[in-house]
């Protein structure tokens, strides 16, 4: 037997793609988990259509899942895939543009037929030539036929048989990348424990795919990706939505305040509600409300009653919550509003990522309505920023908006599991002196009021949405209103004493400072590393704290000749910076395609600026 060609690589990106019903998300997730368990660093990017089952075989119905894994630190799912798994011609058409030149395409030969060529709007019977994919390694595998063959004696109907096709592809890719099957086997066994035939079918097809790769070694190159040097400790794989939910749970435990989430399902934020709904064991009260407004207003009610109150949503739902966020500002109640941003405006691109709700978070309410705004920057650090959002809310009696996005929410990476003992304590500002309680009496340093809940003796009080005086009574006094508007703003600004200084990756001074915020961190840091490797004098300042800004922001900016602000929108953070820190010239790089940045395009933008 001929030995397979073995290619050793630092990192590889694979994109699994097929019809939305082909199980590509599961295939990708299982492969990623298996890779993480093997010790690779990984970064994932599910890229799926808004329709649950778009017409079969069409380009619009293609669901993709990209994972990059490597033997060094992996910060992005990869600009381009080295390997594409395509279950039909439409998948090739939809994903050709995400392929690295010369990459490998593994496709289901049986699905490459006349009917599917037409459905994917190919005009010829040679999709590869038509897409000009000449220099690629194309490996046609009769996946459908071999799946049917391996299951023929199980007595399953054809539909059930075809549903196992993805396991064949997974088995084959596992062989190519030298992944053991044990984790996947365990998953199948426990997932379908009540359906032994399904377990048997999936196992058989998985092994059939793996063995197919082994037996036809001459066809498929084999890749070696060694484990990455990673800080020692206990790890797990986590996506941004789960990390967000867990961060909130951690804040609940640290603060001693029970967690209440009032929320309404919305893509791509729903998983936060789902994850918390599972945690009745930790006492979570999850309330699936009748709409977005009830989501946040039930949460405000729970906050009034002394709970850590949370509502989770995405852009359109965030818009619906605006008035109630204003009530939270006026009533000065702790509240965490998570916005997992997606493409907008209106319904926009529900399953695609964007950073275009920043100005909505900062300003999208009536009146002078300041809230704290913070943003997570990787799937796993959603945990820390959700925890911090809750901490700020409860210690400073203010609504906090946590911005994540579809890319972070759905994307996953290995995460070194923290110990609860390592997290900072949270001290909710609970009122202490019964009998003389004034709801709007403020702490001199933080300007925050104290929190008293119904059921506590000696603290009965009234609050509400009307402007008020220190006792909570309504006040229409002009001077009082001006004073309170200024205090509410100053209260948010004083949160600056809770947040760390802005870090600079790279030299503290130089030619170009790349500035980013939120979910673009992986691409930004990879760009800076790449450019510095090439000898460019480039650094990165990445923001997690937007309002207030870190105290040293101006100082950091002053040390660079040029500042390039990169965002997945048309320039929202840069507009905010121009307002808050005038006196600098801000260059900007913006993209709004519903897609993350690529490292390549960022590199090009910086290079252009350096040459200008």
């Amino acid at each position, binding site marked *: 037997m001929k030995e397979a060609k073995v290619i050793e690589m630092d990192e590889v990106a694979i994109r699994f793609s097929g019809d939305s019903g082909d199980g590509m998300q599961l295939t990708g997730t299982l492969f990623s988990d298996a890779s993480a368990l093997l010790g690779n660093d990984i970064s994932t990017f599910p890229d799926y259509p808004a329709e649950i089952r778009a017409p079969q075989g069409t380009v619009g119905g293609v669901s993709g899942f990209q994972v990059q894994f490597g033997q060094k630190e992996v910060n992005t799912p990869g600009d381009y895939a080295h390997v594409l798994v395509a279950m039909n011609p439409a998948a090739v058409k939809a994903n050709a543009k995400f392929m690295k030149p010369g990459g490998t395409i593994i496709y289901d030969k049986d699905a490459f037929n006349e009917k599917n060529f037409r459905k994917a709007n190919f005009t010829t019977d040679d999709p590869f030539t038509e897409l000009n994919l000449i220099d690629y390694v194309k490996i046609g595998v009769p996946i459908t036929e071999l799946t049917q063959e391996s299951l023929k004696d199980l007595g399953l109907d054809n539909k059930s048989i075809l549903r196992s096709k993805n396991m064949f592809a997974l088995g084959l890719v596992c062989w190519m990348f030298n992944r053991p099957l044990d984790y996947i086997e365990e998953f199948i066994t426990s997932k379908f424990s009540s359906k032994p035939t399904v377990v048997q079918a999936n196992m058989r097809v998985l092994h059939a795919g793996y063995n197919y790769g082994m037996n036809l070694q001459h066809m498929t190159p084999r890749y070696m990706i060694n484990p990455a040097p990673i800080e020692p*400790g206990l790890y797990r794989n986590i996506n941004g939505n789960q990390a967000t939910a867990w961060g909130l749970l951690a804040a609940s435990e640290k603060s001693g305040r029970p967690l209440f989430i009032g929320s309404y399902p919305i893509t791509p934020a729903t998983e936060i509600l789902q994850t918390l709904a599972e*945690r*009745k064991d930790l006492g979570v009260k999850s309330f699936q409300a009748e709409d977005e407004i009830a989501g946040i207003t039930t949460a405000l*009610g729970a906050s009034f009653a002394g709970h850590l109150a949370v509502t989770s949503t995405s852009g359109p739902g965030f818009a619906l919550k605006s008035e109630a966020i204003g009530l939270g500002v006026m009533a000065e109640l702790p509240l965490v509003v998570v916005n997992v941003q997606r493409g907008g405006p209106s319904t926009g691109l529900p399953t695609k990522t964007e950073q275009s709700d920043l100005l909505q978070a900062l300003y999208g309410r009536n009146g002078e309505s300041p809230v704290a705004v913070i943003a997570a920057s990787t799937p796993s650090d959603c945990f820390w920023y959700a925890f911090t959002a809750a901490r700020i809310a409860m210690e400073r009696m203010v609504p906090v908006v946590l911005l994540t996005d579809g890319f972070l929410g759905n994307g996953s990476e290995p995460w070194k599991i923290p110990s609860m003992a390592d997290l900072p304590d949270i001290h909710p500002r609970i009122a202490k002196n019964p009998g003389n309680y004034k709801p709007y009496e403020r702490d001199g340093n933080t300007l925050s009021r104290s929190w008293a809940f119904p059921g506590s003796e000696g*603290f009965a009080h009234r609050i509400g*949405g009307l402007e008020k005086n220190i006792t909570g009574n309504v006040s229409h006094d002009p001077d009082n209103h001006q004073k309170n508007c200024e205090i509410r703003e100053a209260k948010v600004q004083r949160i600056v004493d809770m947040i760390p200084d802005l870090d600079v990756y790279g030299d503290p001074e130089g030619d170009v400072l790349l500035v980013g915020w939120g979910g673009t961190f992986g691409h930004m840091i990879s760009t800076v590393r790449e450019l510095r490797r090439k000898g460019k004098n480039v650094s990165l300042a990445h923001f997690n704290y937007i309002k207030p800004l870190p105290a040293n922001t101006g100082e950091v900016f002053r040390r660079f000749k040029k500042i390039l602000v990169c965002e997945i929108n048309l320039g929202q953070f840069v507009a905010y910076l121009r307002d808050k820190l005038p006196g600098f010239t801000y260059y900007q790089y913006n993209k709004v395609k519903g897609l993350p940045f690529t490292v390549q395009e960022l590199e090009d933008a910086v290079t252009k600026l350096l040459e200008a």
Partner: protein
Amino acid sequence: MNEFNYTVKDFKSENEVRWCPGCGDYAIMNAIQRVMAEMGIAHKDFAVISGIGCSSRFPYYMSTYGFHTIHGRATAVASGVRCANPDLNVWVITGDGDSMAIGGNHFIHLVRRNINLNVIIFNNKIYGLTKGQYSPTTEKGFKSKTSPFGTIEEPFNSGQLVIGAGGTFFARSIDGNIKLSQEVFGEAALHEGTSIVEVLQNCMIYNHGVHDLITDPAYRAERQLMLKQGEPMRFGEDNRKGIVLEKGKLKVVTVGENGITPEDILVHDASDPDPSIHLALIRMHLPEFPVALGVIRKVAAPTYDREMKEQILRIQENRKIKNMDDLLRSGNTWEVKDNGFSNGREK
């Protein structure tokens, strides 16, 4: 009297009440404060939540915990309060516009969930605080500032919404009848579940006399049917009239005429799970029928807030994950050893 010996005064705040002179709201507040004083519940455990509108200024006039929220959302905010702390006695003060126009969605979903709240709807069939526009309970054809030629829409009947949403408690009172209000508020407060009480309330300025046909003392006996659990539905001078069920429909009869005996008169059963007679009573209107007052429907059913609490307790009995450290370490994890490289998976 109870262990607390509260009086009405204990529930009044120091704030000057600013409803218009003669407004029906005063009497309603008075009745609520009397009920609170007599319930045997600690003052600290009351919370009064309101939305927007004249009636919604209510919490500021109470000495209890209070939250004056935003238009239409009091029911949702109160749901959060009660779910967070099911030991509280939570009241929602709302109007016809607040509850059934801008807050209509929250209203029906509250009723559907049966969260233990006492909702008092001040129904004056007009928008008072914005100075006289028609509301979702305004009679069709009514001329107001926004319907100068008369409205062209049918009104809501709050009781019908309650029945439609599967409600467990509905009562109706009149602002001026403090005794009746006290009775039904008391029952509402004791009912385990969402209690909706519609109070026919007079707006002195923008809809004065809207309920006069019903409330006019000269015709009270003829036009009001006071429902009492287990008692026949009798009304009129000397209780001569009554309600019977004929061919599936309610009908007004006179006892002693056409062979009608007292035994023919329907006996009120608010606890009947079948809502059909309750609905028929709710729909009765002048001039064909008297208007039904008192507790029309009161049936036992599980409440959302208790079930939420009990589900958590049940799951916690056998929980594997007892704290965050357990959760963080649950499921698939792996250990990276201190050699710069992972040693692969370990359990």
